[in-house]
């Protein structure tokens, strides 16, 4: 069974440019998460989807970040415009549901460098 797929794995852009990350969750997983992992820290939740609905986006900086999961399967996270401080690893995860005991399966992440 394929795991969570993310692309690209690495991205280097100049500040003020837009960037987008793509995630395909494990088949059948209704819940999809985007996390931000800064260097030397644990991941922090940006947004959680239940099917196509964003049910927790309280930590998403909405002035420059946006996300979508139009058909309730794959998802895109966008930053426009990117800032130097956005350099980090962006992780996607999925689970069967959002219940607390469900394991979240993580993708390998996209490492973003903003110059």
């Amino acid at each position, binding site marked *: 069974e394929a795991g969570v797929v993310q692309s690209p794995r690495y991205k280097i852009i100049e500040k003020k440019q837009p960037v987008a990350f793509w995630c395909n969750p494990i088949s059948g997983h209704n819940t999809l998460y985007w996390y931000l992992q800064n260097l*030397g820290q*644990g*991941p922090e939740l940006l947004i959680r989807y239940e099917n196509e609905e964003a049910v927790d986006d309280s930590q998403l900086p909405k002035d420059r970040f946006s996300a979508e999961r139009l058909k309730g399967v794959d998802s895109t996270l966008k930053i426009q415009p990117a800032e130097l401080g956005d350099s980090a690893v962006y992780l996607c995860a999925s689970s069967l549901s959002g*219940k607390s005991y469900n394991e979240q399966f993580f993708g390998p992440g996209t490492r973003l460098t903003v110059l």
Partner: protein
Amino acid sequence: AQSVTQLDSHVSVSEGTPVLLRCNYSSSYSPSLFWYVQHPNKGLQLLLKYTSAATLVKGINGFEAEFKKSETSFHLTKPSAHMSDAAEYFCVVSERAGGTSYGKLTFGQGTILTVHP
């Protein structure tokens, strides 16, 4: 509110010796607790999880953790370290928020485990 404190940012052991990675948590509700491992350039992988069943939890690759409510701890152990155990380990708490069953994961800062030959 929930939080996790990993007491050591780096742990170094010799191959074949025991591993202890320490974790304390804070939670207002009955928590679920997890340990994840992250190898370089790879995704986070679940080692084990506690969800209010047995307090001693066995995971993959010989790891285990014990939930101690009185000490609010969930330390990760392994009797004998292997070179392949070198990675970063995250203690994670998931709390049922506001009486719902939804769990938001809160990660610790991570502990980097180095294994010497």
